């Protein structure tokens, strides 16, 4: 059986509780290679909890997250060892935090931030690491001359682009993104979205992107899930869901954006 016959990520009835309250309940979906899945909902809807469960950072109370590994087929990520999970996280997976300061090493240079994952998987040639860092700065539209600057000297938009480069340098198969444009100015957001769309397409990345901003999913996501109170209330192709929302909550969500 060929690995491409199967989804890259399969989520089955995923449930996470905080005490009595369900943070997310019975969430199921497949993510295929090259596909971008958007998850929208207001704060408290459970979308960030879902992302944390998917990215192996928060053990669920029920259900499974299966990942199509390179050599062992579909595996429940919560049944792999911590060593395997951590290896996945620095090779196959990427994670883009809403606040770039959570995803960057602020005390080391931009070049080292990009090079870290390469070194973590065994790169031992300084010149090559530096070349890769230079290339990636270019790809995320940061002036190469800033390779030795510390990230805290960067603007918010640049920090976010640096965080993206730091994740993509090892060519991950899946990238999890949590409000990647949150906290940025509108003009900066637009530029970042363009860049993300171009990178996702050219690298054939699979992405799960969580956001409250419908403009982000409109531009990036192929498919969409709308979450409310921990449950998926509606899902489908992005354009379909946004142009012809079926669920009352989705309708409200879409109309509130139009009015704004």
């Amino acid at each position, binding site marked *: 059986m060929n690995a491409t016959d199967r989804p890259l990520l399969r989520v089955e009835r995923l449930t996470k509780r905080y005490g009595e309250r369900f943070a997310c309940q019975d969430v199921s979906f497949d993510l295929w290679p090259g596909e971008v899945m958007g998850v929208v909902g207001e704060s408290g809807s459970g979308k960030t909890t879902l992302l944390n469960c998917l990215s192996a950072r928060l053990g669920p109370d029920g259900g499974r997250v299966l990942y199509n590994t390179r050599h062992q087929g579909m595996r429940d990520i919560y049944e792999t060892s911590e060593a395997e999970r951590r290896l996945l996280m620095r090779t196959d997976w990427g994670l883009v935090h809403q606040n770039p300061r959570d995803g960057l090493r*602020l*005390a080391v240079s931009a070049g080292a931030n990009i090079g870290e994952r390469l070194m973590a998987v065994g790169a031992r040639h300084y010149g090559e690491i530096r070349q890769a860092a230079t290339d990636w700065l270019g790809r995320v539209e940061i002036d190469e001359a800033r390779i*030795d600057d*510390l990230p*805290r000297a960067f603007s918010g938009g640049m920090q976010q682009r640096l965080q993206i480069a730091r994740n993509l340098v090892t060519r991950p198969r899946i990238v999890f993104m949590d409000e990647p444009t949150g906290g940025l100015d509108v003009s900066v957001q637009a530029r970042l979205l363009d860049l993300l769309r171009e990178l996702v397409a050219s690298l054939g990345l699979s992405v799960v992107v969580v956001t409250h901003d419908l403009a982000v999913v409109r531009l990036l996501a192929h498919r969409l899930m709308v979450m409310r109170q921990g449950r998926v209330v509606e899902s489908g192709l992005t354009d379909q869901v946004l142009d012809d929302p079926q669920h009352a909550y989705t309708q409200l969500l879409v109309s509130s954006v139009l009015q704004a």
Partner: protein
Amino acid sequence: MYVSVKGGERAIAAAHKLLAEERRGDPEVPELTLPQIEQQLSLAVTRVMSEGALYDPELAALAIKQARGDLVEAIFLLRAYRTTLPRFATSLPIDTGRMDVRRRVSATFKDIPGGQVLGPTFDYTHRLLDFDLAEPKPVAAPDAEESEPQAAQPMPSVAAILGQEGLLEPEEPGDESAPLTDLTREPLSFPAGREARLQALARGDEGFLLSLGYSTQRGYGRNHPFAGEIRMGDVTVEIQPEELPFPIGIGEIEVTECQMVNSFKGSKTKPPQFTRGYGLTFGHGERKAMSMALVDRALRCRELGEEPSSPAQDEEFVLYHCDSLEASGFVQHLKLPHYVDFQSELVMVREMRERAAAARKAEAAE
């Protein structure tokens, strides 16, 4: 018995009487004299003078006696006395380069001009209880050879030696015409200047600074320290009277100074240079001077372009919490009556519990 609602005055008077008795201890045992404390508990005396911010060994000895050896309490006594003193003059900065040195060590060079002078140190003693000290002994005659005064050799500071090659960052002289912050007269404000920081650290609690300095060594704000030089000895305090064209010496004080040499900074454009941290105490106070120097360097992080991430680098955290009087007072004030606040809480918690119980009962009845 704990003071009840009435009769507090009588209880306090009785407590003070008891305290005086406890302080004196068994009347069969001879009473301590101030010279005994000053001479034989001299390191306690210097700590009380340093953190009490008053150079007066006799009063410090008195404070220690009165405080029954509780040094934080003794520091409190001395500070409370100090604050009543009028200020006649402001001394010139002391010149530790002209110190009459009794101890001087550098961990950065095996030998230095003027040599390493071990002096009176615990450093290389084995910590084995010396049971011979248990009983008083007659004083041995001074060893003639040892008491031979050493030929005075110039002792340039290690910092100056490193500075000649530009290896150590220069000490910025600052604006001498600008008035210095004086923490004994003005409140702290942030960001604090280095002089305010050093004053606060000089008066700061030794234990607190020790732990903070230690935390930087263990990775919480690391700055690669080397003990460039520690020197201890007497320096002259001088004042410059307005009516005289030259300064006059008004006395000698014993101080310990630590010049810490720390990790180098540098970039492609600026050659690397070691950075410094500074510590100074009255008397012989090496542990405190070194801790102070480590914390001083840690607090310079912003100025040196380091990201503050650890407690020792957090100026507000360090300076607001380093003073033993403030800390001891506030922690111990919890012993004071809080009847009223607690009563208010009691009433509220009871009320809320009653309401909850009533609601449960109502639910059960449905």
